[in-house]
Each structure stands twice: as C-alpha cells, then as structure tokens.
C-alpha cells in the first residue's frame, strides 16, 4: 500500500469558463434536443463535481478540494459523443504517470455514465495516450465489461466509487 500521497502537490489549473447554452428558450414542444458533449460533461461535473482523487484514501483535507476539472484530468474537449450512433468516448489524463488512482477515476466515470445515460449507449473510457505508465493495461481493464462487473461486486471498490460520485458541497 502507498502510505503517502501519490502526487503531493498537484498543479491546479483555473477552471475554464463554462460554455453557456444559448438555446435554452426552446419553445417547440416536440423538437428533439440531442445529447451533446457539454451535457455529458455536465453529467460528469454538476453532480459529482468535487472529488479529491488524491485524498480519497488517506486524508480528507478540506483545504484542497480540487475537482477533476481543476486538475485537468477531464476537460470538455476530452468527451466525444455521437447521439445517433449511441456512442461516448471519454479520454482522461491522470496527473502523474504512475497514478494508481487512474483506475478508480476511470471506473467512477464509467459508473457515472452508465447510471446517467440511456442504456443504448456504448461507453468507452480511455487514458490519454502517453499519460500513464501502464496505459494499455489500464484501457483494457476499464473497457472489459467482465472486469468492470467484477469490480462492482467488490464492496470495497463500490464504496469507494460511490464516495467519488456522491455530490460534494463546496
């Protein structure tokens, strides 16, 4: 087990200005609003916005509630979505190459999307190329439905994921 923090002093980035929806006054009752990039991003952030991945296990330090967004683990551009083909791909960037939290982040993202998107969607979670030491293994692990299912049967893991997903209050 790692005893200290994995990345003790993460770089914190400014939060990007959120794109504001312009067509909110859509009056047509029967028009269809397709699921888009921003919506997926909002799903990932409005609900479980602030998760201090680096402090999950050992310490809870309320002084540093960084979100995945502030750490640039996830950005809006890293979400690709095609509503017609029912396909989402999320690419995330762990902060350090050996981040052992990467699996947890990936799993949380997957669970969140599974719970929030219609079942017709195929979800693909990837680590950004070159950002992690065991990139291939990680990608394989995250997209193997058997292994994900198995992971979700592990009560410890489920608890940890739920903790990540529980809405936190700034």
């Amino acid at each position: 087990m790692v005893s200290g923090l994995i990345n003790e002093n993460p770089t914190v980035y400014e939060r990007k200005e959120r794109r504001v929806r312009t067509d909110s006054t859509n009056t047509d009752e029967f028009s269809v609003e397709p699921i888009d990039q921003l919506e997926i991003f909002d799903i990932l952030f409005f609900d479980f916005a602030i998760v201090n991945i680096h402090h999950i296990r050992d310490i809870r330090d309320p002084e540093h509630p960084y979100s995945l967004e502030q750490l640039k683990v996830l950005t809006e551009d890293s979400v690709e979505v095609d509503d017609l083909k029912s396909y989402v791909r999320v690419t995330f960037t762990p902060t350090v190459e050996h981040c052992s939290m990467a699996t947890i982040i990936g799993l949380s993202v997957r669970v969140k999307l599974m719970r929030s998107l219609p079942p017709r969607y195929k979800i693909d979670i990837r680590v950004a190329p070159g950002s992690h030491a065991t990139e291939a293994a990680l990608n394989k692990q995250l997209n193997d439905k058997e292994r994900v299912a198995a992971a979700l049967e592990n009560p410890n893991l489920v608890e940890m994921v739920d903790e990540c997903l529980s809405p936190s209050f700034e």
Partner: protein
Amino acid sequence: MAALNNLTEHLEAFVDVTRSPTHHAESLKAIATSLEKSVLSINQLVVEMDMYLTTTDDVVRARGILLLAEMLDYLKPKPLDNAVVNSLVGFFTAKLAEWRSVRGALSGCLALIKRKGVAGLVTATDAEAVAKSMAQSVQVQSLALYDRKLCFELLECLLEQYPEAMINLGDLMVYATCEAIDGEKDPPCLMVAFHVVELLARLFPSPSGPVASEASDLFEFISCYFPLHYTHTKGDEASIPREDLSRGLSLAISSTPFFEPYAIPLLLEKLSSSLPVAKVDSLKCLKDCAVNYGVNRMKKHYEGIWSAIKDALYASTGTDLSFGLESLTSPGFEMNEIHREAVNLLQRLVKQDISFLGLVADDIRVKMIFDTISRYSRYEEMLDTSKLEVLVVSQILSVSARASVESCNTIFETFFVRLMNTLGIVESTSTGDLVHNENSTVSTRLYHGGLHLCIELLTASKDLIPSSEEDSSTPGCAQQSWCSIVNKFSASLIEAFTSAVQSSNDDCTADAYLGVKGLLAMGMFRGGSSPVSRSEYEKILTTLTSIIAANSAKTVKWELALKALVCMGSFIDQYHESEKAMSYMGIVVENLVSLVRSSHCSLPHPMILEATSEVCSTSPTYVEKMVQGFEEAFCSSFSDFCVNGNFKSIENCSQLLECVTNKLLPRVTEIDGLEKSLVSFAISMWNQIESSVVFSYAFNGREFVEAAMKTMRQIVGVASVNSQNSIIQKAYNVISLSTLPAMESIPLTFAALEGLQHDLSTRDELILSLFASVIIGASPMASIPDVKSLIKLFMVSSLKGYIPAAQALGSMVNKLGVGSGGTNTSSDCSLEEACDIIFHESFESGNTNSSDVTSKTICGSETLLAKICLGFYGSLDLQTRAITGLAWIGKGLLMRGDKRVNEIALVLVECLKSTNSSGNALHPTAMKHAADAFLTLMSDSEACLNRKLHAVIRPLYKQRFFSITVPILESLIVNSQTPLSRTMLHVALAHVISNVPVTVILDNTKKLLPVILEGLSVLSVDSVHKEILFSLLLVLSGTLTDIKGRQSVSDNAHRIIECLVKLASYSHLMVVRETAIQCLATLLELPHRRIYPFRREVLQAVTKALDDPKRRVREEAIKCRQAW
C-alpha cells in the same frame, strides 16, 4: 439569615473550579440579584468573602477576586459609597502585581473605572495609581487572549475617563502602550490597541510631549500591521471584520502629525505593492493622513503622492469607454476600488491645498494630452495607450476641478481654453455673435478624445454649482472665472456638439454619444446664474427634440436623445427651475404632443408615443398636457378612420390606447390630477363614438376593440365613484341613442334569437363592448341607470355570443344592491329582481313550455335559461353560449356568496352527464363548455370581477364552492356511464381542485388522492387536456411534499407510483414529464419499506426517461435515478 447561608453556598460553588461553567454562572447570578436588591451590601460581601480573598491557595484566591470583580461589573449602575470604591480600587490595584489573580484584578479595575454618572467614582489619584501599577507590574504579552483584551480596555478606559491623571503620568503611559502592543496578534485586542494609540496621540499633542519623542517607536509597533492581512479568513475571527480593523489602524496611523516622517514613506512604498488590498488600504490611509497631518507637513511629500496617484489611476483604468445608453449619466467606464480611492485622495488633496494643483498642471503627461487628442479624430482609431491617456487625464482634471471652486477656476483657465483651441471651438464675441471664420473646420476637427475631456470638465463644473449656491453669501458662480469661460464658449460648444450628433451615422455611435452627452452636460447647469443662457438652453432642447422627431427608426442616437431629454426633464422637476420648465414645456413637450396629434409624420407611431410618454412623465404638468394631446389625437384619428376609412389611423388609435393603459394607468396614484384627465379622456372617447354615427367602412378591428375595452375598464376601475357615475351616464346616453335599445324589445322567442345572428353593426358592437367594460369596471357604489333593461340587453347579447356582455352581467349581479344600502338609491332594481329577470322574465314570452316557469326565485334546472343550457331548445350555438353566460353569472354570484350559485352549479353538472334527467343526449361540445365553465367559476380573471375592478369578494368563496361541488362530482364520476362524460366530469373536477388553495386539498388528502390519481390517468389519454393535466399534477406534487398528506400518500404509494411512472413518458407536454420525475424523486421521503418494492419499476421508467428528447427531463431523470 437565609441570604447569608445561601451566599456561602454560592461562594463555594463559584470558587470550586471543578464545577461546570453553567453552575458558576448560576451562583454568580444569584449573588448579583441579592446585591442588586440590597439584601446584601457590598461591605457584607467583602467581609463574607474575606477568607477567599486572602487565602494562600492561589486558585481559590484568584476565583474569589474574580467573583468580586464580576459583582462590581454587575453593580455598575448602582450607587456605592466613595470610601468603599476607594478601598476596592486600592485592593485591585495591589492585586495587579500578582500574576495568578490578574484577571480578577483587571476586570475589577475595569468595572470600577467604567463607573460613570453614579455615586462612588474612582478618584483621579486612584486612577493614576491603577495606571502606574499596571504599567509597572503587568506583562501584557505574557497573558492569555482574554486578559490581554482586558488590559487594552483598561488602558482605553483610563485614557478616556481620566485624561488629566494620564497626562501627569506622561512617558509611562506611552511606554506601557508600546510594550503592550508589541507582538499582539489578535484582532479584538488590536482593535482596542489602535484606539488606545489614537487616544494617546490626542492626549499629548505638544511637539515636546512623550508621543512626539516616542513617535518612531510607537509607529514602528503599529506600522508592522500595515497592510492588514488575515491569514485565517474563515471561522473564529468573524467577530471583527477586516474593514473595521483596517479602518482602526488607519485612524491610529493618521492620529498624530508626529508620525508623518515615518508614515508617508511607508504608505507610498506599500502603494507600489502588487497586492490590491495593500493599495486600497494605503490610499485610504493617505487620505486620512492628509486630513490630519495638515498641509504643511504633507507638502514635502506631494511629488511622491502625485506620482503614486497617477500610477494607481493608470493601472486601474480600463481602456473601454462605453457608448451605451446607461452610461449617459455615469462616467462611462468601470471603476474598481483602487480607482475610487485614488480619486478620493486626489480630490481631498486638491481641496485642501490648491498648490497641489500646480503639480497636476505641470505634469508632462497631462500636458501631452493635447497632442494625443489632436492626433486621432475617432475614438476607435486610438491606440490603447492613448485611450488610457485620455481617460486618465480627463479623470484627473475633472476630479481636481470638482474639488473646489478655486481649483475649478485654475483648471479652466489653464486647460479649458487650450482645449477649446485644440478642438477649434471659438470664443463668441461680446455681442454674442459667433466668429464665423473657422466655422467650416469645426465639423472636421471633432476629436473624440477632446470631446470626452471637455464633457468631463463640464460635468465636473456643473456639480460645483449647488454647493456654491446653498449659502447666498458667497458670490454666485457667475462671477467665477470658470463660469465666464464656459459662458464665452457655450454657443460654439453647443454648435460643436450639435454637429457631432447630426453628422453621426449608424455605424459610429461614438459621435452621437459624445454629442448627446455634451448637450446634456450643457443643459444641466443649475440656476439663473448658469453659464448657458436661456436661448442657448432652448437651442439644446430644440436639437434633441429634432433628433427624436427626425429619425424614422429606433437608432441608438434616438434612444440617447430621448434619455437625455428625460434626464433634463427630471432635473428641472427636481430643482424647480421654473424658467427652464417653461422652455422645456414650450419646446419639448409641445412639439412631441403635436407630433402625436398629427397623423402624418415620418416617425412610426409607437415611437412617438414612447418618446412622449417618457418625456412627459417627468412632471405632472406635462402629463396633463400629454393626456390632452392624446385625447385630441384619439379623436382625430378615430374620426379620420370613420370618415375616410383610414386603417392606419385606427391602428394608431389602438397603439395610443395601449400606451395609455401600460404607461399611464399604473402611475395614477403617483401623479396628482392624472385621474381627472384620464376620466375626461374616457368621456371624450364616448363623445367621439357618439358623434361618428356612421361607420362607412366595416373593419375587423378586434385589436382596437380590445384595446379600447381594456383602457375603458381600467380607467373606470381607477376613477372615483363620482367620475364613474359621469362616465356611466355618458355611456348610457350614447347607448340609448344607438340602435341597441331596440334589442331589448326583441321578443325573446327562440325563433327570434335564432334569427338574430348577425344584426349588430360594428358600431353597435363597439358601443356594446365599451359599455360592458364600463359596467365591469364600475364600483358597487356607482349608480347604473335603468338596470332592468340593461340586464335584458346584456342577456340577449350574451346569448348571441358576446362574452363581454356575459361578463358585464356577472359583474352586475356581483355588485348589485351592495352599495345602495347607504349612500344613494344606486339602482332601481334589487338583486332579487335582477335574478328574476335573468332566469325567468326574459323568456316569458317564449312560445314553448312557458308554463314551466312556476317557482319564483329558484333558478335551478326548472328555469328557462337552464333549459337552454341543457339543450331543450335552440341550436347548439345557443346552448354553448348560454352555458358560458351562466358561468359568468355564476361567478358573480359565487364571489358575493349568494346561494343561487348552487343551482347554477347543479345545472352545469347536469350538462356534464351523458344523458340528462329527461333522457336527451348532450352534445360533446356543450359538455366541454360546461366543464370549462368550472374554470371560469374558479379561476381569477384578468378581464373582470377582480379586486382592481371593485368586485365584491367574500373570503373563502373558492373553498365554499369546492366543498359543494366536489362531493357531487365525485359521486357522478363513480356513476357515470359513458367514457366521454367521465372525462368531462374529471376535467371539471380538475378545474375545481387545481384552483382551490393547496391547504384545502391538504386537509382532504385522504379523500381526494384517489380521485386525483384517477383524474390524472383519465386525462392523460387525450392531448387536449394537457394543460389541466399539468395543473392537476402540480396539485399532486403539492400534496406529496407536505407533511399533512404524508400518511395518505404513504397509503396510496403504489397507485401514485404507477400513475407517475405512466406520466413520466407523457408525450404531449415536457413539463408534465419533468414534474412527474421530480415527484418520483420526492417520494423517496416515504418510509423505505413502503417504497422499496417499486424500486425496479421506477428505475425502469426513469431509465427510459434518460433517453428523453428534452434535456431538462434528462437532467431530472439523472438526479432521480441517482436518488433511487
């Protein structure tokens, strides 16, 4: 002595440190009360406490002394013997030396020193002893937080109350303070400490005094806190906000001129820091220093301060000058706090010492400005640096000018003339004529930067006038040199601004903006001594008015000019400038009103109306004028329409009426006399209609009729009873001269009614609708002539499908007879009679079945009107109209709480049955109308029968109707035979339920919930009912969230969930889906075991909703799913 026995107990309790704090407080309180009631004297207490005060046990002694101190604190308002006080002070003073009991000693001293205005004061010598002992034996910084605070408070108190004694001590106090403050870190203590420094500085003002000699040390101790910065932003230190503390520090620093050699350099240094807080604090503090240190001491630092101010201004000014509408009366760019403080400081300095202005005037950057200005002619072309230059310099100059009259003079003498030369604006000669030699170049050399600078200066000088006019002893501003300078240039300035406005085109708003702003600045000089002469002022008004009149589209220029005019108008009204008001009236108001009157001008009608109403609402006199103008305009365009068939003018008419309703009517209470002119407006409307006998052109001007009705209704609504009477009288005259009365005599046979399909001319229709509006708006007090025939008239016309007539009937029924009790015989007809007419008489001549009319005042299903409703006679049209009419009449009766409404409800319910009592099948349309009639009955209507229109409203009428109808409808639903009637009954019930206050529903949740759920499922079949479905769903969600309904919700959980799950995929209305999902989420508050069985079902439904076409539904679904 019981008191004494208790005393020992209490003493023991307090001294025992192992007991809880509440225990301590209790015993303290008990002793204090007995002291206050004089059961126990302080002497007795001391004697009694002897052991505790002198024991060798340190802890007990400390507690004992503290107890005594606390007691004295309680006894502050109670007179004590001087000897007692004297000995007590001596005691505490002695105890100060003992560190173990220092808290008690400190609070004891403090309590005694704080005594004022009662017998038993501490003498000056005692106070001196206290101070000496404290200075010599208390190590403030080695004490705990609370004790330190006590020390500072003691110092503060001593300095405040015994200044002479403290002066005797001299150096000692200053040393003690220095020592005490050194290293202090807690805001509450610092707050007091800063005040102590301030007091010290006040006590020793002499240059040879202790403060002067110790200034450098003392300053060192307090300056290390500057600028204040809290490391812990949250939590415990919330008691003293940073602003207060920094204010205290600033006061301490600026307290004595002796700090000057140390303070100013420090502040200037901190000003150059990059921390915004430091800058703001330094600027504030410098301002305080400037006030307190005096001109002579500040003088040597002027250069440093000036360059610091300049830097701050340059750094804090943005380069965006807004040319927007809202910035017409403001500086036009954003100001942050640094900027504001820098401006304040500059103004302060200039005000205090005019020689500071020399620095400003000699500054190279300020001098450079004229080159910069003349380099670019358009603001957009300027480089950012030059923009900044212009903005900052204009700020500096205008602020300095604003500081005092002298500075204004200097600035104008030095800069304004030069600026004018740069701009090519020439002086007018003494005769007032312009020197025309450079006239051609004026238009070409309009430098925006220069204009901006010029406007800023003018605005600044304008602000000076009020202050110089307040006391008449000072010479009026006309004598001041700045004023004469402005006066010299005013004519050509106005010309320059005018040409700027006129030359501007749409793509360049800067020209228009600067021009209008300049004109506004010129027009806002106050008083008779203003540098702008009357003719020039009038010229400004003319220019602005002509801009408004000339434009044919709503441009920025137009809006700017309008806003400027409104500003000037309210300015005149605010300062009561009668002379200018006359010019304003003559030029602006008259012109605009005449524009309204003339139907032929380039400006679109709504824009004229907007301009006129905006401008005229600045003062009551203008409003009167405007209403007159409107009146004439209405008459002329109405007659123009009637005679020439000009459709444009009828359109103008309706726009005008709309303007009256929207702009004027809401302000009736604010403006005196508006009501009167509006009433005359209404009467002239009637006159006009009366005089235009023939409508030579038929028109389908629904819009106009509606606008006219609305205006009429609201005018009558706001008018007093007398004016209402006159309007009614007028209207009645018109109506009795028209062809309408003929209708009263129409034999009310069904054949005749059928034959009367289209015989109302447009004019009659207009008159009828307007008259109905008058009746609707009238108060119960107003007298309505010839009620009986009017009722007949409305009856017939409502049966012919005129809804206003039906509403008027409802309104009449509602108000009849209420007002007649006191004042006058307002009607020749009581409510009884009116109902008689409505329900019986009108059809007595009917040729069929008239024998049915037997019962006198009952208006149940036996009456003829009811029979029409039920479709016995006449066509379907007649039936639906009768139902609608009945609904309005019912509403009138319902609101006044009349019993007859029950019968009406029964008739309506009868209509909802698939087959009525006599076996006739009812047409679906009629049923639909009957169901909607319940909506009419229950909902609040905008058009009639509301509080504004003087309806008689009994409290709780909705509840009453609810309790009457719901059981009937419920039982009918159970027994209904056909699906159609079932649906209709549900619609009716939903109308009733959703319009009644939620609390009523909550009281009856148990009974209603099944019906609501059934209704929801029945109504969800057809998309026609989506609106009512939604309101019913809202009722349901209301019951779900309330604690009262919890039990029955829990009982019905399965049905509710089933219903909500179905509604979650309701395809016709998004809000229904959204609300249904929200309701599902709220159901989670029910006990877990109750809802767990439905988890699967709900999750399925919500998962489906995740794929909803609407985003909001999806978002709700995500939340809901997460929750389940």
